[in-house]
């Protein structure tokens, strides 16, 4: 009604200005996003096609050379292998343990806070500090781990556990110095450090489940804890699980401090724990091979991107119910 009476100019301005306004208002955010997200990523992408190194006066376009190296050189093959092993071990284990711990703590009447704090401690402690403790514990001769294992020598445990018998006969593993064990030790520390965080997220998820659902499950004849878990808890934790898995995946791809702290010569014995993030650091910063570092970065971003896309798909479609 009002619009009919308006002169044409006013009407045009009224039609255009909300759009202009919208662009104006989002300009700062857009500029920031470009500046701190897209520009660095694009420059890394460009650099990954060059042989640039910091301080060099010239740079050459080398095409896909850097990427070719990534997929042909054995040290990068080890890097991919170590990183993927780490991710595939640490993610399911720390998610599973986090969920298990959350369920156990949630079923407790008293003492919840104590357990919560204890399990959350490794998350809060910086790994650089904790690495000293782990190094000490895993020391081949004076370490607590091997000392404890040695106590089992000569007892009945030895006859049940061939691995221990072997250790007793030929000496206990040197853990961090052995390429067969180093990666697994790093995985173990990753799980130890990560599951407390997942536990806290799951605990938050558990408090959001309506009690009535459990009552309804009971009335419907779900008699065992497992049936209630299948019918109520697990589906209700769907959104939490997607989030937890995504976060844990990304954190696992980013593992760096454990490797840096535990292995003074970089990447573990014969590069058995040569993680992607560590490789980026070693190539791009320590050895100043920015082109290669950028190429690994691109690969890393690709992985993260894939995970994020999967997460978005899942959250949009399946796991949100209301």
């Amino acid at each position: 009604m009002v619009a009919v009476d308006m002169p044409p100019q006013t009407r045009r301005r009224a039609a255009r200005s909300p759009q202009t306004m919208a662009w104006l208002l989002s300009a700062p955010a857009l500029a920031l996003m470009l500046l701190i997200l897209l520009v660095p990523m694009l420059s890394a992408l460009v650099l990954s096609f060059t042989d640039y190194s910091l301080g060099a006066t010239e740079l050459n376009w080398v095409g896909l050379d850097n990427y070719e190296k990534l997929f042909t050189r054995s040290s990068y093959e080890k890097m991919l292998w170590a990183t993927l092993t780490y991710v595939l071990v640490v993610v399911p284990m720390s998610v599973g343990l986090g969920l298990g711990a959350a369920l156990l703590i949630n079923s407790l009447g008293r003492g919840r806070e104590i357990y919560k704090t204890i399990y959350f401690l490794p998350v809060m402690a910086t790994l650089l500090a904790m690495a000293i403790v782990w190094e000490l514990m895993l020391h081949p001769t004076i370490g607590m781990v091997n000392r404890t294992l040695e106590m089992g020598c000569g007892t009945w445990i030895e006859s049940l556990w061939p691995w221990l018998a072997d250790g007793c006969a030929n000496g206990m593993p040197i853990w961090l110095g052995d390429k067969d064990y180093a990666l697994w030790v790093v995985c173990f520390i990753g799980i130890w450090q990560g599951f407390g965080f997942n536990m806290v997220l799951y605990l938050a998820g558990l408090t959001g489940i309506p009690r009535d659902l459990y009552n309804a499950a009971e009335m419907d004849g779900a008699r065992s804890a497992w049936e209630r878990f299948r019918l109520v808890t697990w589906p209700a934790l769907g959104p939490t699980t997607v989030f937890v898995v995504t976060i844990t995946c990304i954190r696992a791809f980013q593992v760096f401090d454990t490797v840096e702290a535990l292995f003074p010569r970089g990447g573990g014995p014969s590069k058995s724990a040569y993680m992607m993030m560590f490789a980026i650091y070693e190539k791009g910063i320590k050895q100043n091979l920015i082109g290669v570092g950028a190429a690994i970065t691109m690969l890393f971003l690709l992985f993260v991107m894939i995970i994020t896309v999967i997460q978005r798909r899942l959250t949009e479609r399946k796991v949100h119910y209301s």
Partner: protein
Amino acid sequence: MAEVKITDLRKSFGDTQILKGIELKVADGEFVSLVGPSGCGKSTLLRIIAGLEQESAGSISIGTEPVSGIRAADRNLSMVFQSYALYPHLTVAENIAVPLRMRQMTRWQRLPLAGGLMPGAKRREQEIAAAVAQAAETLEIGALLDRKPGELSGGQRQRVALGRALVRAPAAFLLDEPLSNLDAKLRVHTRTEIAELHRELGATFIYVTHDQVEAMTMSDRIAVMMGGEILQCAPPQKVYADPDDLRVAEFIGSPKINVLPAEADAMGRLSVLGRDLPIAVRPGRQTLQIGLRPETLHLARGDAKIVGRVVHLEHLGSELFAQVAVEGLQGRLVLRAAPAQAAALQIGSEAGLDFDPASALVFDAAGMRVREILTAPAKSLAQAV
């Protein structure tokens, strides 16, 4: 189908006693409403019957079996929760099927993929699908079977919750305020449906509500609960017309019953606000209270028993409620009048009220009903004695 019998049931949470000796017997096929103000323990009682909460003392039997110590899943009851408690990740059809799948299929038959290969699983699935379709048809939710609860309106969710309860033939149905989340119109509609469903199934229903209209319209009997006790359990008309307790009289009926202080003299003759009534109770001086339903009050033609001033009017179309302030009375009296009488009732005007003494409900000072009402001996006669 079975009767439910509750004997001297008590429940305390810590030091607070919530249920104080509940006695209730629900006959096979009967529809009993538990009604009472918020916090009086209705849900707690229902949850104890269901087995979701442990009683502190007393016993419950369903059918002929005492069920103390038997877990909820094994009591063969169906419950509709106030919050509906539908499984959000399952479709409507799957939700309704859950009680059947849980109870009629083995653990192996229920396995996601391999379950279909187990012997007998196919046939079971078909039977269950048929039962679900039948329940959906009864409740007219056939078109919703593939939706998730999150995509339904409150009323539709409520039907699904009912469907999940109805799909089995349990010993009894327990419903905890299933209509409280619905809008007024849908509530009226659904309450008729539930009542009809009850007649159709002939099953035992225990229905919790704090809405007295729901209780009045649906039930065979109403159990009025207050402060952890059942004050009266009787058919709706009886609870309304013949309450045992002033609290029952005040809770049931809208607008609320009018309560007036009354005096009985040595002969037991009653007087209200200084006016003698032609009724009496057992001889003995005492203070009493009389309850007058709004419809028993009417405008006086001649000599008025009570005189007051009209302070507020509520026209409801078919009837008219007038609030009358009376000197010497704290609350206002509510009077129901026909719309035709509107002219006589003007705000601010004086109104003389009258009532039939026989319709007055007499309660003692503690609020217990006094049923022994006599016609008062004539005054002159009394004076002669």
